C-alpha cells in the first residue's frame, strides 16, 4: 500500500483550487468596490467587508478539503465560489437589504457541502426509500395550492409560507423526484426496455409499469394549470423524459412524452387565460397590447440587454430599476446591462464548465449518475 501511494506523489495540496480561489477573491472585491463606490460616490474601506467574510468562508472550505485530504475535483468549488461572488455583488446592487440573508445562505450551503463529504454515504438509502421521496416530493409540489400555507405572488402560486418569509418548495421537489425516478427506473428498467409485446415498431410494456409515467404527465399538467408555472412544468417533465430515455434507451417513450406535453400545452393554451398570456408575451412582447401590460417586464429586460452593449455600462452604472421585478427574476438582465455581452458570456461559460465538470456528466450509467447528483 505504501509503495502504491508513492507511485502518485502529486495531489498532496490543492494548489489549483487555491489559485482559482484567489482569482475569485479579486473578482469579488472589485465587484463590491465598483458597486459601492458608484452608490456612495467615494471609495470606502467598508466595501471589502462582505467579500472578505465570503472569501474567509471559501478559504475555510479549501482548508477543510486539504485537511481531510480530499482528492476530488479542484475546479468545481472555485466556480461555485465565483458564481456566488457575482451573485453577492448583484444582491448588493439590486436588493442590498437582502445581502445578509444571501450571505447566511452561503454559510448554510458551505456547511451542507462539508457535511456531504464527511457524512458516510449510504446511498442505497436513497433507493430503498424511493416511495417516501416520491410522496414527500408530491406533497411539497402540491403544498403551494393548499389554502393556508400556499401563497400566490405575481400570478404564480409556487410559494409556501414559512415563518415570516416564504420558500419555493419546487427547488427541493426537483431533487426528490430525480432520486425517485432514478430508483424507480433502475428497478424496472428491464421490464420497460425489453417489452414483450410490440405494436409495429413501438414497444408496449405491461400496463402497470406505465402508470407512473402517465401519472407524472398528469402531475406536470396539474402544476402548469394550477400553479401557473410554465418553467417548472417543462423542467419537471423534461427531466423525467430524459431519465426515462437514459434508462430504457427507447426513443419511443421520449417521443410519446414530448407529444403528450405538446398536446397538453395546446389544450391548456386554449382553455386557460394565464397560459395564453405567457405564450403571447413570449412570442410578441412588443405588441401594442402587451408592451405595457404582461410584456412590460420582458421588454424592459430586453432593453436592458441592449443598453449593455458589448462591454456594458459598468457595474453600478446601469438602470436596473427600470425592470419591475429585477431582483428576483431578471438578475441576469441587470448583470448583462452592467457587464455587457462580454460579462454575460463569461457568466454563462462558467455555468457551462460547472455543468460539464459535474460528476453526473462523467458517469453516464443511470444509477451512478443519479446517485452522484
Amino acid at each position: 500500500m505504501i509503495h502504491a501511494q508513492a507511485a502518485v506523489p502529486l495531489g498532496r495540496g490543492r494548489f489549483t483550487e487555491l489559485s482559482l480561489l484567489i482569482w475569485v477573491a479579486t473578482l469579488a472585491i472589485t465587484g463590491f468596490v465598483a458597486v459601492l463606490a458608484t452608490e456612495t460616490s467615494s471609495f470606502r474601506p467598508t466595501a471589502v467587508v462582505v467579500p472578505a467574510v465570503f472569501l474567509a468562508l471559501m478559504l475555510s472550505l479549501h482548508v477543510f478539503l486539504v485537511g481531510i485530504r480530499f482528492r476530488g475535483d479542484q475546479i468545481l468549488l472555485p466556480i461555485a465560489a465565483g458564481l456566488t461572488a457575482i451573485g453577492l455583488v448583484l444582491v448588493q446592487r439590486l436588493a442590498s437589504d437582502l445581502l445578509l440573508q444571501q450571505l447566511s445562505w452561503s454559510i448554510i450551503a458551505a456547511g451542507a457541502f462539508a457535511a456531504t463529504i464527511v457524512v458516510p454515504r449510504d446511498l442505497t438509502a436513497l433507493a430503498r426509500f424511493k416511495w417516501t421521496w416520491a410522496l414527500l416530493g408530491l406533497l411539497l409540489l402540491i403544498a403551494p395550492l393548499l389554502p393556508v400555507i400556499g401563497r400566490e405572488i405575481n400570478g404564480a402560486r409556487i410559494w409556501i409560507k414559512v415563518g415570516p418569509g416564504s420558500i419555493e418548495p419546487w427547488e427541493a421537489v426537483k431533487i426528490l423526484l430525480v432520486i425517485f425516478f432514478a430508483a424507480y427506473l433502475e428497478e424496472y428498467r428491464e421490464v420497460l426496455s425489453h417489452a414483450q409485446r410490440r405494436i409495429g415498431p413501438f414497444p408496449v410494456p405491461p400496463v402497470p409499469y406505465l402508470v407512473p409515467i402517465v401519472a407524472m404527465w398528469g402531475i406536470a399538467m396539474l402544476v402548469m394549470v394550477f400553479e401557473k408555472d410554465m418553467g417548472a412544468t417543462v423542467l419537471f417533465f423534461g427531466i423525467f423524459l430524459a431519465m426515462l430515455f437514459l434508462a430504457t434507451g427507447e426513443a419511443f417513450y421520449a417521443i410519446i412524452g414530448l407529444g403528450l406535453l405538446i398536446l397538453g400545452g395546446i389544450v391548456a393554451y386554449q382553455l386557460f387565460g394565464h397560459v395564453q398570456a405567457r405564450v403571447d408575451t413570449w412570442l410578441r412582447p412588443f405588441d401594442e397590447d402587451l408592451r405595457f401590460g404582461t410584456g412590460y417586464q420582458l421588454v424592459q429586460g430586453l432593453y436592458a440587454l441592449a443598453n449593455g452593449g458589448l462591454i456594458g455600462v459598468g457595474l453600478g452604472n446601469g438602470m436596473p430599476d427600470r425592470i419591475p421585478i429585477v431582483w428576483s427574476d431578471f438578475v441576469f438582465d441587470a448583470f448583462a446591462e452592467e457587464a455587457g455581452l462580454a460579462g454575460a458570456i463569461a457568466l454563462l461559460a462558467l455555468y457551462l464548465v460547472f455543468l460539464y465538470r459535474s460528476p453526473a456528466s462523467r458517469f453516464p450509467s443511470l444509477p451512478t449518475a443519479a446517485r452522484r447528483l
Partner: protein
Amino acid sequence: MEITFAVLLWGVRILFLVLLYLFLIRVFSSLQRALATENTIAARPTGLAHLVVQRTVRGAFRVGDRLPLRAVNGLGRDAGNDIVINDEAASAKHALVEFADGEWWVEDAGSTNGTVVNGEVVRSRERLQYGDELAIGRVALRLEQ
C-alpha cells in the same frame, strides 16, 4: 478630484471584466490540465493490475484466468461492462473497481446480491488491497499485480 474619482471608478469597473475573463481563462486551463491527467490515466493500457479468478460458475470464466484491469472497470452481467460476469447471481451493473489516488477501490453499483470483499459486504466504497478476494455473485476474484 472629481475627475480622478470617476477615472478610478471606471478603472475598477473595467478591471472587474478583465478579472472575470482572467478567472475564466484560468478555469479553462485548469480544466484542460485536469482532463489531460484523467485521460492519461483512463487511456493507460490495461494491465495496471489483474483480477485472478478463484471460483467460478459454468459459462463464466475458468479458475486461474487473469483479467487485466483498467483505471476504471465496470463489473456485471451486462455486455457493456469491462469485465462481464456471466452469472445469474450478478446484477447487470454490479460493481465498480477503480484506481484512484494510488489505490484500488471497489464500489457496489446497487447490486441485488451485494459485493463482498474478504467475506465482508461492501457498504459503499472500500479500499482494495493486493491479495483481497472480491466476490460477485458466485464468482470470486483476487486482486493481483
